[in-house]
């Protein structure tokens, strides 16, 4: 194989690993938006907390990768429920902008509160994976890349199963379709909303651990930009639609690594936002979204 196509394949592999992280974060955004129509700006920071609790589990508790992942997912699920109960629940019936400002407040609180707790110093993630590389047709597959993709795929499959085939999932879909009607049918909407936050935050925590492993360093402000980009991914696929978030995340990862591969890595964020604006102008409901007509 010649070097250009090898290079392209290499970028596709990198893009898929990065994209699977975005997809995991985007899922949380999209689920929360689908159910209470709130852009949860604190979601990227929940991911940061996930990365730190994973780091804590690996370096202090000396856990191997999978238990550390579980530890961080569970602690962030609790954090997600806590945030929802304290900050968002009292605003369930307030204006959208008030809820948005609250989300920004929670986000700032996690970032700068985190800075006080763990200090602003950048920490190095311990190498949890062996540095093995597999070569297939000139393309490198890092052991870590494979584990990351696998983790993401397994988690997404689990999520899909939960939403489509379990009773809780059915209730979630009902609440996102029509909250009042769901309440009348005897669904405890408050619990379902908390459950949605728990799942979304757990996925974000997984993304945080993977992000720490992928980039090796973590800091309290690491959640801002990936959070924003995951949000772009969620909008790209159609916000509120779960498969849309997965596809959007992977697409965004691919676009970014291709732009970086072309040597314009400082422009890759701009390209991501440009795509976002184009999608919004051409098909505002996203790639997978249905066009809802407005009735007077």
């Amino acid at each position: 194989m010649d070097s250009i196509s090898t290079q392209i394949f290499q970028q596709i592999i990198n893009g898929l690993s990065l994209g699977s992280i975005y997809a995991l974060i985007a899922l949380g955004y999209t689920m929360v938006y689908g159910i209470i129509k709130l852009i949860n700006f604190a979601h990227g920071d929940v991911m940061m907390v996930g990365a730190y609790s994973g780091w804590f589990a690996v370096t202090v508790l000396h856990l191997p990768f999978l238990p550390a992942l579980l530890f961080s997912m569970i602690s962030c699920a609790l954090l997600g429920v806590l945030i929802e109960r304290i900050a968002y629940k009292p605003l369930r019936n307030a204006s959208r902008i008030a809820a948005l400002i609250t989300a920004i407040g929670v986000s700032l609180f996690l970032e700068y509160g985190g800075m006080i707790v763990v200090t602003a110093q950048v920490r190095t993630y311990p190498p949890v994976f062996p540095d093995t590389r597999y070569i297939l047709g000139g393309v490198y597959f890092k052991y870590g890349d494979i584990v990351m993709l696998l983790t993401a795929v397994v988690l997404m499959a689990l999520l899909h199963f939960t939403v489509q085939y379990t009773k809780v999932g059915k209730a979630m879909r009902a609440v996102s379709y029509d909250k009042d009607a769901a309440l009348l049918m005897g669904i405890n909407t408050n619990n379902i909303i908390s459950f949605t936050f728990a799942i979304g935050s757990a996925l974000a925590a997984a993304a945080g651990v993977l992000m720490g492993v992928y980039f090796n360093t973590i800091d309290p402000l690491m959640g801002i930009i990936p959070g924003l980009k995951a949000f772009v991914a969620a909008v790209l696929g159609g916000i509120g639609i779960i498969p849309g978030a997965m596809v959007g995340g992977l697409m965004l990862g691919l676009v970014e690594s291709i732009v970086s591969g072309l040597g314009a890595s400082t422009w890759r964020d701009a390209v991501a936002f440009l795509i976002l604006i184009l999608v919004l102008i051409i098909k505002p409901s996203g790639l997978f979204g249905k066009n809802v007509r407005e009735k007077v």
Partner: protein
Amino acid sequence: MRNWFNRKNIVALLGIVLLYAVVQGLIVFDIMPPFYKLTLILICIYIILSTSLNLINGITGQFSIGHAGFMAVGAYVSAMVTAIMHGPLLLGILTGAVVAALGGLLVGLPTLRLKGDYLAIATLGFGEIVRIVFLNMELVGGAAGFTLPSKITWTWAFLLMVFSVVIIKNFVGSTHGRACIAIRENEIAAESMGVNTTKYKVMAFTIGAFFAGLAGAIYANYMYIIQPGTFSFLKSFDILVMVVLGGLGSITGGIVGAVVYTLISALLAGIPEWRLVITAVFLVVLMIFRPTGIMGTKEFTLGFLGKKGDKNATSKN
């Protein structure tokens, strides 16, 4: 023909002149510490920003969170005019504001078709693109920032602030402003009553962008250095928070919000590590207990000084 010299306007004018004279006196006689002066000029800048965002978000009911993008355009363009081309200060400020307004027009035309959250996301994306463009521009120093002399004095900042607020206030009271309020209350009803909604939305957006650019230009020509990082979406959030804090849709509320928020930031400057944590908690608590902001949609007016007719003409909503 309206009588401009009624008692209310005269009292307002006297108040403004008095406020200016007191601060100017304190500065001239060197009584005011530099930190206070900085805070006062920042308050002026943030009043312009929050009032102009209020025009878009509060009066017209559109949801923009990319205001820092227009501020960045104004800041960088005016910096290029004053520092690279050595143009006069006023020309720099005006060029910055006009280019920002053109940017607003360019962004507003396609994106204002979007509603609610989607518009918010699009404007957020635009703001980030602007930041990245300046980050990659070698001419203005890239990530390291661009240094320029500080030419803005208290007089400049205060005069431009009063100018902006008066223009926006009068816009809101005009036919165009009424059309914008109609769009906020119910876009479909406004359209069926013959309001050209696209025109007025783009108009409000462009005017808002103009004054954001103006504020950015003042900021650039005061601060000695501008960096792309200053104009990230966190700055947009700051401005949005000021507007919501004071009361969305109330011009005076936006001013109160800008003053309160800047003062809180200044008061907490001694404990930088806790500053944003306290601000965050304050925000969440305020939103839970008073989601309409300090003033709601009410205006603080001097109506009690004028005749009855004036009172009806000035109170909104």
